[in-house]
């Protein structure tokens, strides 16, 4: 059985002091913010165009034409390219994850692509010719544009929410049961509201730059745009619905079991709350004017909230990138057992980049194991550094805790190598902690390997369980 496993090894790059998750999270924030701006922007412009055509807003039409130019200039360009960028970054961070996603959902992506095409044609048509069209065509073109933009959210949302809550897809492998998963609707509605919020806030900034309008006219436009902030009132409920729909351990990470993640969540909620309060009391009830600086500040808050949200979303999937299926380090759940027998890097064709700097074969093996199994979440001495996390541990503690990795912290996958690899990794960490001396003794004590083997067996090959009582765990 182990021999039949052909593991698809990919070259693994070193991201320097950053964790790979940070890279994808960082780009993700920009992309999500811009994409949501485009979606909400479509809805906002439909609304204002409609107001203008009903005679309820004399300056809305001018605003729509202005705002659309900005939308095209920013979101067509940077939004579209950061979208491709997300794809490329996903390949860099975890080729197997994106490969599996493409395999399962390529028709969903193909559908999304037809909406992209519609979005750029309708958007560009409005951008170029909108000012020369009659009212009915204008409104319809805008409606088609915003529908296309919103539907691209609809489709991608199914794939992204599936990563965290694949539900019955795990057994059925049915595309639609994966797509309409338990967090699909709460996250779709939530993101739609976020889109409207971002668009309304950006609109407030743009309206402030329209020097040709007097302050009264601008106030009217601002208050009309701010109506898109009203749905924010539903956010707390949607948030609860969302949290109810995700796995219990993911919920627990965000709600306190993992401190950085909770901080991001609190940041996100705090920022949203500030925007929401300002919107409801200032803009909607009191019909206040908001100046350019305040509007820009509110936009920055929205950006920070998006940032927090995206980090949490990327974070709570641990130890999986696709729940119950694929671990963050690109090992499938069912492959751990075979890799434990065969050795996780035995067939890895990619050499180490600085092999000569390491004094022994054992350390070279350890470095390869680190690269393959740990480097997606840890650096040696940068972010989430192993030297800092485990530096103070004794050698024996390192052995025990790495052999039973999924129990050391349940958001780590099980160790997927043989005892020799585990010991090599331990020696490698010791060597790094000792400041990389030029000589290092080889550790090949049989008794040590036997103890590691026992630890591996006790831990098992399944993911760690946060909510199983330790006593029950032992008795299994």
């Amino acid at each position, binding site marked *: 059985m182990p021999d039949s496993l052909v593991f698809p090894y990919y*070259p*693994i790059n070193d991201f320097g002091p950053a964790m790979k998750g940070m890279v994808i999270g960082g780009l993700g924030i920009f992309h999500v913010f811009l994409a949501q701006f485009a979606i909400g922007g479509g809805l906002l412009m439909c609304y204002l165009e409609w107001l203008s055509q009903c005679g309820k807003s004399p300056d809305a039409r001018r605003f729509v034409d202005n705002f659309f130019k900005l939308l095209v200039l920013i979101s067509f*360009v940077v939004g579209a390219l950061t979208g491709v960028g997300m794809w*490329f970054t996903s390949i860099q961070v975890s080729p197997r994850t994106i490969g599996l996603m493409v395999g399962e959902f*390529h028709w969903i992506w193909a559908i999304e692509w*037809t*909406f992209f095409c519609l979005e750029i044609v*309708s958007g560009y*048509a409005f951008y170029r010719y909108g000012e020369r069209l009659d009212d009915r065509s204008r409104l319809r073109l805008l409606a*088609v544009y915003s529908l296309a933009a919103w539907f691209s959210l609809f489709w991608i949302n199914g794939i992204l929410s599936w990563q965290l809550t694949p539900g019955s897809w795990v057994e059925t492998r049915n595309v639609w049961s994966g797509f309409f998963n338990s967090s699909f609707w709460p996250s779709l509605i939530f993101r739609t509201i976020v889109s409207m919020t971002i668009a309304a806030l950006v609109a407030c900034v743009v309206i402030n730059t329209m020097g040709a309008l007097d302050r009264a006219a601008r106030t009217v436009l601002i208050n009309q745009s701010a109506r898109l902030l009203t749905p924010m009132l539903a956010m707390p409920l949607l948030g609860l619905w969302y949290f109810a729909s995700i796995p219990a351990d993911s919920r627990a990470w965000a709600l306190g079991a993992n401190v950085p993640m909770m901080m991001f969540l609190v940041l996100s909620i705090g920022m949203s709350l500030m925007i929401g309060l300002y919107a409801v009391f200032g803009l909607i009830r009191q019909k206040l004017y908001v100046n350019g600086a305040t509007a820009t500040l509110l936009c920055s808050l929205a950006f920070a909230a998006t940032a927090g949200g995206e980090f949490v979303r990327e974070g709570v999937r641990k130890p999986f990138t696709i729940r119950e299926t694929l671990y963050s380090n690109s090992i499938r759940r069912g492959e751990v057992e075979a890799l434990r027998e065969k050795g996780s890097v035995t067939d890895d064709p990619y050499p180490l980049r600085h092999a000569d700097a390491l004094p022994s074969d054992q350390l070279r093996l350890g470095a390869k194991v680190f690269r393959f199994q740990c480097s997606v979440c840890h650096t040696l001495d940068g972010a989430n550094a192993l030297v800092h996390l485990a530096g103070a541990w004794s050698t024996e503690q390192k052995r025990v805790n790495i052999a039973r990795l999924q129990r050391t912290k349940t958001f780590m996958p099980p160790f997927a190598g043989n005892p020799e690899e585990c010991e090599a990794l331990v020696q490698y960490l010791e060597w790094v902690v000792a400041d990389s001396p030029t000589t290092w003794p080889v550790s090949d004590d049989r008794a040590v390997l036997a103890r590691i083997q026992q630890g591996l067996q006790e831990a098992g090959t399944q993911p760690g369980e946060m909510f199983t009582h330790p006593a029950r765990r032992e008795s299994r």
Partner: protein
Amino acid sequence: MGAPFPFDFPLPTAFYLTLYLATLVIHVAFMNYVLAGSAYLAAFAVRHGRDSNRLTDHPLAGPLRDWMPFMLSAAITAGIAPLLFIQILYQRQFYTANLLLFHRWMAILPVLIVGFYLLYLLKSRIIGEASFVWRIVVGCGAFACFAFVAWSWTENHLLSLNESAWSDQYASGRLFFRDPELGPRLAVWFTGAFPTMATIVAWQWWCLARLGRPVPATANQSCTRLALSGLATAIASAAWYVENLAPELRDQLVSSAYRPYLAAALVGVILQAAGWLAGRNQAGLQRGRLVLISAGWLLTVVGVSVLREGRRLAAIDVTALYDLHADAATVGGLAVFLVFAALNAGLIAWCLVTVRRGVRNQAP
């Protein structure tokens, strides 16, 4: 290999290959417009110096400058579809090349963003009023961006085919991959982009004429000259490319599976040349002639794309991938895709009709 491509492959493989090629051809059309168009605009800015801005009604520079940003959006969007299918067809090859080139590969994104804004700048009033030196800088800068992107795709492609080089490439940490095919291959793409661009510009003038816009007297001649010189240099580049190719790869291209496509490409070139030559002294751009040229273009590009695939398939063991393709073909969603593809194609057509009606009604 007996039957013509792709009939010798199992159905799932043939299916995804066909989809990949069909969508790649769309990407090529827009990408060619951007690549050749930006090269033309850069050369134009250099050649006409101070005057380059006054020549707004130039038969090529005018529409190019105006339409370039949209065409770039279209090239990017059209690129997403083959990007999807390539991940099903050659997942490991494509991803590995991406990973090996690392920062060098990821650089195409910021470079495209810069290129995009340079194109907007190029058509803006600001640059029109600025010193001509700025127009040269911006024009050449935009072209440099797209040339870099084309080079990156070609390099990535060649690296993805060369599995024996992967391990060394990784160990060395090099961000560039040198390959004797790189130069000639890029030359084919670059020179071949001009006939495509000239054809699209010719259609643009044809549409404008129908909308009542005056067409410059030299439009036909300019397009013809550009297309014919593009065709001639593309043929020379292709000859250079084939000469540099290993003999067994050359044999693959004339094997029975690929011979029909070689023939199609050549017939396409002849049709294009004939179409351009036949009307070279005429004043206008007639629809019949443009249809003939476009049909020739399609034959050539489809033929060349399939030959390009033949070169790839000669380098990798595709039989090992059959199971993966068959596996991918079992997932659902195709029917829903077809429904939405039809629906959205309809909506796109509706947008175009609406705009045309609107513009006609407003025309003086």
